Every structure is written in C-alpha cells, then in structure tokens.
C-alpha cells in the first residue's frame, strides 16, 4: 500500500446564497463547508458523521465533482478534479462512484436493471455489447444478485435488493473510491446487515475504498477505519474510529456518541436544552452555544484542529475531553 492518499480534500469552502432579506440587500451566505481538509487512503474507508446541515452531503457532492466549491481542491490519485477538462473528468469518473440513501429514488423506474447498471459504462462509451453484458452480469453477481436479474425492472425488487442494484452500478467501472451517502438508513433493520457485510467484503476483496457519510455512528464504526465528525461545515474531530468512539475528544463528538441509541445501556441523560443559547459569534467556536463546557474564550476565538491524545487524533477544541 502506497502512502499517497487516494482522495485528498484540501480546504474546501462552499457557501450557498440565501434569499435577500430586503430588496437590493446583498444575499446572505450560509456556509455549507468552511475549510474542510482530510485524506482518504486506499483500503481504509473513511467515515463522516454529523447532523443535518453539517455540510456532509455537500461534501459528498463536491468530492465527486458533482458540484464545485468556492475554493479548495479535491485530488483523486494526485490529480486535481477541478483542473481536468470535461473529457478527462468523464474518464476520471470511472474511478469514483456513488451510492445513495434512497433505493427507490436512485433507480430510474423506466429502465431495466441492465441499462441502469451499465450506465457508467455508457458514459465511458467504449464497451461492446457483449462486453457490456458480461460486465453487468459480473457486477450483479458481485453484489449477490443473479445475472438474469438484468432483464427486470426496479419495481420487481425489494428495498434491499434495489440497494444491491445501486451498488452493482457503482462497481461496474471497478472504481477505487465509492462515496456512499447514508447507504443503509432507508433499509429495514433486518436487511441492513446484508448491505453492510457486502460493503465490508467489497473493501477487502474488490479493493474498493468507501467514503461513507452517515448519521448513524454504528454504521460508520462498522466499516470505517478513520472517522471525521462535522459540525456546521467544519471538521471538529478526526481520528481512528475506535478511539474516537471510545473516548471522544470534542464535546460535539461526545454528544453524538452519547445520543446514539444502544442495546446495552439506557442512554445517558441527554443534556438539557439551555435556555436561549447566545447566538454563535462569527469569531467563536460554532459549537460553543450548545456546548456544556463552553468557556468565555470559546465564544471569542475559534479553535483550529490540533493534535490530541496521539494516534493521529485531532480535535478543534480549546478544552478537549481527552
């Protein structure tokens, strides 16, 4: 395994324009990503957790060059995606694919599975009919479906099987990176495990590295070696998954871990909502208004990601919990 990262994300910034508050006033901006950097190494899947509005889905889209950042870089195998020509980017897409949350919305209901799974090949536009058919069969079998399923329509499958079709589509170009945005959260509990095992197998056997985006810590922990916690467009903590869950350093990561429902214990009493939290000042830590440990300094200065507790762990907190 080489030491060069498979995917490198450098200082991504992206803000969305909100409606003007008054006519002719400038559009206010909402930062979806406020300077996000990390690296994903081949064979070591990377997880991103955070609440809605934390910017994790925006990050997924930008990492796949489906959206462009205001500033920052995305490099796949050392090549900067936003410097590629349109044709080069199209060819590059063979190396990076996408799996979605909704196994119903992500498959075109009017297409046969064969056409759906082969779509990434169609975009590359150089497979013969026979080769195409063989690749579709190979891909379907890799996810535990039958080659004969290629002639069916999506509505003939259950939710779990549809998600397999979506995974087969992502695998057909033999990509190195697959971005999975909430891949199992729409599945019934009893079929989630099938999909998670499949993803584990693909990482081990097919050389696929996942960038997994989820709100469910248990799912991330199952698949990812490294995990980043995001809050309001920033990474607040990043490090080896096991260490991060065992003893979160950032108060937000701690809140996430504590709030995750577990079979083996009652949830620790959730922190009470503080009455009318002070608005987050632009200069301070974005989490400070919700933080049980916030000190005056937190409201004035934003902490940067810094090393905590070894093992390559970093947290953006003035008073890390470990």
């Amino acid at each position: 395994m080489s030491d060069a990262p498979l995917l490198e994300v450098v200082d991504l910034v992206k803000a969305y324009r909100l409606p003007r508050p008054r006519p002719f006033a400038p559009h206010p901006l909402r930062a979806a990503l406020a300077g996000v950097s990390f690296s994903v190494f081949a064979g070591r899947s990377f997880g991103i957790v955070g609440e809605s509005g934390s910017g994790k889905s925006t990050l997924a889209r930008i990492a796949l060059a489906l959206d462009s950042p205001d500033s920052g870089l995305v490099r796949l195998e050392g090549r900067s995606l936003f410097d590629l020509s349109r044709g080069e980017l199209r060819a590059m897409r063979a190396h990076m694919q996408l799996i979605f949350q909704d196994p119903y919305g992500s498959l075109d209901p009017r297409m046969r599975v064969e056409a759906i799974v082969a779509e990434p090949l169609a975009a590359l536009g150089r497979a013969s009919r026979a080769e195409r058919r063989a690749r579709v069969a190979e891909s379907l079998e890799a996810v535990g479906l039958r080659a004969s399923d290629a002639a069916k329509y999506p509505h003939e499958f259950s939710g779990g099987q549809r998600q397999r079709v979506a995974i087969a589509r992502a695998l057909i170009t033999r990509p190195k990176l697959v971005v999975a945005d909430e891949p199992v959260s729409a599945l019934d509990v009893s079929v989630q495990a099938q999909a998670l095992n499949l993803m584990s197998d693909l990482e081990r056997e097919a050389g696929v590295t996942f960038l997994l985006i989820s709100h469910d810590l248990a799912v991330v922990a199952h698949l990812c070696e490294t995990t980043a916690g995001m809050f309001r467009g920033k990474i607040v903590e990043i490090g080896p998954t096991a260490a991060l869950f065992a003893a979160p350093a950032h108060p937000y990561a701690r809140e996430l871990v504590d709030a995750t429902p577990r079979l083996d214990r009652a949830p620790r009493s959730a922190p009470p909502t503080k009455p009318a939290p002070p608005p987050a000042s632009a200069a301070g830590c974005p989490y400070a208004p919700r933080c049980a440990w916030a000190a005056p300094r937190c409201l004035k200065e934003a902490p940067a990601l810094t090393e905590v507790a070894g093992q390559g762990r970093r947290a953006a907190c003035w008073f890390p919990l470990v």
Partner: protein
Amino acid sequence: MALYLLQRLAVFVATLVIASAIVFAVMEILPGDAAETLLGPTATPEAVAALGHKLGLDLPLYVRYGRWIAGLARGDFGVSYAYGSPIAPLIGASLAISLPLAAMAMALSAAMALAAGVYAAGRRGRAGDAVVIGLTQVGLAVPNFWLAILMVIVFAVWLRLVPAGGFPGWADPARAFGALILPAVALGVVQAAILTRVTRSALIEALDEDYMRTARAKGVSRRAALWRHALPNALAPVLTIMGLQFANLIAGAIVVENVFVLPGLGRLMLQSISNRDTLVVEDCVMLIAILVIGLNFVVDVACAAIDPRLRSRSA
C-alpha cells in the same frame, strides 16, 4: 407582508409595461398604414398622407407609444378612426355590460364549484363523486357559446320567457340584470366545471395530508377538520386557477355576448375589427390585459394572505 406587497406591486407594474409594449407592437408596427386601410385602395396619396398626419401616424413610434400610454393613464383612449369620436365613452358603455357579466359568471362558477368540489371530495370514490366528475366532464366538453345558443332555443324560442338577446340598458336594473342571467349561466357553467375539478383535487390532496390525521387525533370531527384545516389549504390553488381562468372567462364573454347580441366589449372589438378601427381594438385588448393582470395580482396577494410561507419568501 408590506415588503411582499411592494415586490408584487413592482412585478405587476413591470408586467403591465411589457404587455402594453407587446400590444402596441403587434397592433401598430405590423400592419401597413392605417390611414391607407381606412380610406381604401382608391384614395389618393395626398389624402392618405393628410389623414395619416391627422391621426399622428407620421410621428416616430416611440412618440406614439408614449402618447398612447400617457393617454391611457389619464383615461384618454384616443379617437376612433371609424366613428371620429373619443374612444373612452365607447369602452365605458361596453364595460358597463361586460364587467357585470364577468362578475356574475365568476360568482356563479365559484359558488357552484365550491359546493360541488367539497361534496365530491367528501365522497371520494363513491357514487356522488362519480356523478360530479361525470358532470364536470360534460361541462368541460360543451362550448359555452353552444350552451348559450341552446338556452336561447329553450328559453326564447320554445318557452318565449325572455327575448333572444339585446340589452335594455341599466335604466331599468331588474330587466338589465335579467338580460345578463342567461349569458352569465352559459359562461359560468363551463368555468364551474374546471373549478370544481380543481377544488376537488386540491381538497383531496389536503385531506390526505398528515395534519388532517393530527387534527383527528386531537378529537376534531371529520367535518370541522375539513372546514378548518383542509379547506384553507385547498383555497390557494383554487384561487390561483381562478385567476388564470379569468382571461379565458373574458374571452368566453366576448363570444357569448355575440350570441345574446349584448353591446359589450366583445361586440365593440368585433365591430372595430370589421371597421379596421385599430386603435379601439388596441385599447380594448390593453384594457383586458390590465384587468387580467390586475386580477392575478389580487389573487397573488390573497394567496399570500392565506399562506404565511409565501409571505416570508421574498425573492
């Protein structure tokens, strides 16, 4: 809300300006010389030039547009080429018939549509619903002017209850009103068919919303939930369609006025077309555009008054 109103008002005015420019362009730029048309092919070039000068046709386009707009704003609609008299009183007289007719048809169709729509939505999939749907299909298929003719046949030709057409004037309000009833029904029935379908489907959609289940879970009765929770939510789409349909209602009025020989805006326009009286047609079209755009502005504001989400969404 004030901000929202201001924005809508700005859009309203801008729309009017564009509408006037288009009407002016179609009517004034494309035809040959109005003076030539009026005097006929035998006219001498001198006579054409003289009339053209008198009508102001030799002025630059933008000057003529400016004069026209300024005139409209003051209520001065210019002078009819054909009658040689000011246009404003002509239009005023015809509006005195067309506006009440449109208003009656609108009120009639709204009342019918609300009743039938609520009835059908409440009995979705049952016999009563099917009957209403079937009737609306018939209402949509029958041309309003044919319905008008059929009513003339029944009420004037066979039953001899009313005269076949004409307008007695507003000096006798009761008779004037009576003369407008049949045309208003002919117009209103077709509108009612469209509005009933919209009301029904908007209500059914609202009835399926989660908040209806919430209301029932609070102990609100089915009927109260329909009136208090579903209907307000269904109203905005119905109002919007009503606004959009208003232009078609006016168009229908033009045809139906013709059936009943009512001297309204429609008759005035058709006569002016055959007289080649372009300026009258232009004024009438512009007036209708103002009415339609104005009503849709009112509908927009009404929808915003109903729905807080629209108010907060400033562009």
